[in-house]
């Protein structure tokens, strides 16, 4: 049709070449041609300039849009998705795709489902194919970018077409070119953006540079997100062990608690784990070793839980394992056990944990044996506040410690009441000490043959302004724990020795003795000997009239240390008495080595010994043992004439008890001494 129209046009016009130009026309024609050429060149220059300008503007628009998205995007994927769209619009590419680097270097790229797709589904097959491919190094165009860390492109029909598994499908979809560039942080490829084009591509320097800039912008997004993730991680994790910290633990706990309130029959447990004698490791082997112990403990706890199918089963979150075990600080760890069906589950876990911690630790080239105490609280108690369940697990842990450590205890309400009372006691005790509410009573120790007072046992008494008398059995352990025992012990010692000195002078009995109790904590702390030495000098009592009473269990806690202290005390002329004898598990060989002077028969054997033959026999054995070892015997808690006569019969040197005297005030004791007119 077109050919026909041209030929008809040709018929109707004159041929200009037919007219022979004269010289003037020829010159004008040349001039015209020059002008036309100059115009075309000028136009070409202007067009190039305009085109460059336009391109620059487009580049700026692209980079701006990517920079804005990069700054505003909350997630890496959102920024990447925006970039895919912006680059597609800029370069008129209909399809763009994001691939992300794997977790570890050298791993294949993750072919994400993040696409920019301008088609109405024309590329579905290509997309599915792409998402199914693992782009390792040198596989497909993304693999090439991963290896080279540089932009790359490939066209259908290229000589190395075989390297591009997606070309056949791309071609079917009307695409014939691939372009890809890396998203880099430093020299690390963290992602690859790839684009598909229906046109053959041979990107120029300007495009490569531009895509390089896009890659840099996006790299910053990844970098920023990593920094954010690191900050988030640091805010919620303990730097030493990498376990969750208190904040993370409470978050998780809150989450569990809400679920427990929402879902019936859903239960969880909190385990509070505290190492026994951690301070000893820290003090003895140094902080470095203490830190190592904490790290090893964290690993053992984590491994133990990870190996526990009870933990993982039924968990709905796919969070890290470390959200189960947390370190609250110091040597305190907490463990959250999800979805338990009965209380046996946390108990079994606790037992397993105790077992793995009982294995020796290798610290500073030596084996260290550590135990732990574990408190357990169950969500079934209907908690509403995370702090409450944590507190109760803590209280149960405390009870585990009180009951001899290296064990677990399940929280019960009784513990809560005790814990509350203990807290009140603690506060009151500090007040009492400041207000001098603690007093000393003196219970006479007599020889049963003549009923004469030979000495006294100084007993600390606390009269609380509201609660009345509080038993030493209750407040002494509290004082020990909160570090007041040393001060209380010193006060009692000082007061008792001052009294004894006055009585020795007043009544002329220089062999009158004073027994003062020493707690396990005082024995293990360093300044007992110095304190005693100082008090002996201050008081001026007769040599050899101060007796220190120690319980069997406190002596046996660290026999070597006790022995050392005993020798030092003996050198000061102090007599030593083993209290509550028979109630612990003393080794007789140790007993033989200890430089003690007196055995005290515990009141539990004395009480009703005239009725209960077994008690009597034990008491007899103690007396015989004392004889063999050359020790004196004091029987305490004698309340009846029958008991006293039994003790007398078996040869107990001294007797102490209500039968003779209750503990007396200083004045009453003085009167009693006066009444027997001399010693």
């Amino acid at each position, binding site marked *: 049709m077109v050919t026909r129209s041209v030929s*008809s*046009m*040709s018929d109707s*016009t004159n041929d200009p070449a037919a007219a022979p130009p004269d010289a003037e026309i020829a010159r004008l024609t040349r001039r015209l041609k020059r002008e036309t050429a100059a115009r075309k060149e000028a136009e070409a220059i202007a067009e190039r300039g305009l085109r460059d300008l*336009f391109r620059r503007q487009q580049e700026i628009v692209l980079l701006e849009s990517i920079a804005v998205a990069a700054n505003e995007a909350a997630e890496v994927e959102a920024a990447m998705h925006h970039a895919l769209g912006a680059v597609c619009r800029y370069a008129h590419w209909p399809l763009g795709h994001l691939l992300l680097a794997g977790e570890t270097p050298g791993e294949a790229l993750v072919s994400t489902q993040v696409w920019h797709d301008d088609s109405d589904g024309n590329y579905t097959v290509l997309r599915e194919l792409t998402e199914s491919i693992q782009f390792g190094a040198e596989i497909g165009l993304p693999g090439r970018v991963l290896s080279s860390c540089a932009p790359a492109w490939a066209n259908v*029909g290229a000589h190395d077409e075989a390297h591009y598994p997606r070309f056949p499908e791309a071609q079917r979809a009307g695409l014939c070119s691939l372009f890809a560039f890396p998203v880099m942080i430093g020299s690390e490829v963290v992602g690859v953006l790839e684009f598909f084009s229906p046109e*053959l591509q041979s990107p120029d320097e300007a495009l490569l540079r531009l895509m390089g800039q896009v890659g840099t912008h996006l790299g910053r997004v990844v970098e920023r997100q990593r920094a954010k993730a690191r900050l988030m991680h640091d805010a919620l994790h303990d730097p030493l062990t990498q376990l969750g910290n208190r904040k993370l633990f409470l978050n998780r706990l809150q989450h569990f608690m809400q679920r427990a309130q929402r879902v019936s029959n859903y239960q969880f447990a909190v385990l509070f784990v505290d190492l026994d004698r951690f301070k000893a490791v820290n003090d003895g082997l140094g902080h470095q070793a203490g830190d190592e112990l904490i790290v090893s403990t964290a690993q053992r706890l984590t491994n133990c839980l990870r190996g526990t199918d009870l933990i993982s089963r039924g968990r709905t979150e796919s969070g890290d394992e470390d959200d189960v075990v947390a370190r609250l600080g110091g040597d305190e760890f907490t463990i959250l056990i999800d979805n338990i069906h009965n209380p046996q589950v946390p108990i079994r876990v606790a037992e397993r944990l105790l077992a793995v911690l009982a294995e020796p630790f290798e610290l500073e080239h030596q084996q260290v044996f550590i135990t732990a105490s574990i408190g357990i609280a169950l969500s079934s108690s209907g908690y509403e506040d995370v702090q409450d369940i944590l507190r109760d697990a803590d209280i149960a842990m405390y009870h585990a410690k009180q009951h001899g450590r290296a064990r677990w205890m399940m929280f019960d309400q009784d513990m809560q009441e005790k814990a509350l009372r203990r807290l009140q006691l603690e506060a009151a005790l500090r007040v009492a000490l400041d207000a001098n509410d603690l007093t000393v009573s003196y219970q006479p120790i007599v020889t049963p043959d003549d009923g004469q007072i030979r000495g006294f046992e100084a007993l600390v008494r606390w009269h609380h302004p509201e609660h009345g008398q509080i038993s030493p059995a209750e407040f002494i352990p509290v004082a020990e724990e909160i570090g007041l025992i040393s001060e209380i012990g010193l006060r009692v010692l000082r007061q008792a020795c001052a009294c004894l000195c006055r009585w020795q002078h007043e009544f002329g009995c220089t062999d009158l003795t004073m027994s003062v109790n020493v707690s396990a904590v005082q024995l293990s702390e360093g300044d007992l000997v110095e304190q005693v030495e100082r008090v002996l000098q201050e008081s001026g009592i007769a040599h050899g009239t101060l007796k220190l009473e120690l319980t069997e269990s406190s002596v046996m806690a660290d026999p070597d240390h006790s022995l050392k202290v005993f020798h030092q005390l003996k050198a000061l002329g102090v007599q030593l008495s083993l209290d509550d004898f028979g109630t612990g598990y003393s080794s007789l060989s140790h007993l033989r080595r200890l430089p003690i002077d007196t055995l005290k028969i515990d009141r539990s054997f004395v009480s009703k010994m005239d009725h209960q033959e077994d008690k009597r026999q034990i008491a007899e054995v103690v007396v015989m043992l004392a004889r063999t070892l050359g020790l004196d015997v004091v029987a305490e808690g004698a309340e009846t004439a029958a008991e006293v006569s039994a003790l007398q019969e078996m040869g107990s040197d001294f007797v102490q008890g209500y039968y003779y005297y209750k503990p007396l005030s200083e004045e009453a004791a003085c009167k009693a001494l006066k009444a027997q007119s001399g010693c």
Partner: protein
Amino acid sequence: MKGIVFNLLQEVVCKEYGEDTWDQLLDDAGLDGAYTSLGSYADAEVVALVNAASAALNLPAQDILRWFGRRAMPLLAERYPGFFQRHQDARSFILTLNSIIHPEVEKLYPGAATPVFDFSNDEQDRLVVGYKSARKMCALAEGFMTGAADHYHEQTEIDHPVCMHHGDEKCVFHVRFHK
């Protein structure tokens, strides 16, 4: 209308019929004929030129436009080789007409009203091309498509069943390519 279109028309006419013919067409249309590729000129001027040619040749204006479009293609390929090198065949080239025309025109003449092409496949090997433009120069578009086929050494069969000149909202071409 863009100056480049007048330049191309001038070139095609001069090449085939000589410069006097072009002068004659300008005189017939009552135009001074100073066109630069950087400029933009009233649509009426191109219409007047096509009508002048139509009258001179006693041919429908549509035929003139088709002829012009086809003949202009080699000149475009000479001026802008990059657009053609990116494609292996006419179909692929035609599919990217929008992406060539729009930015290239807009970059030179911001605010230009450009034609819009749309594409679809209805049967195997048949490309359905939609054309929409206020100038209704569908014949020029058809000429361009034929010229593109020439460039890739292909033949085309073009049907034009729907046309704005017949009151339709847009033109539709059915195009088949043969190697």
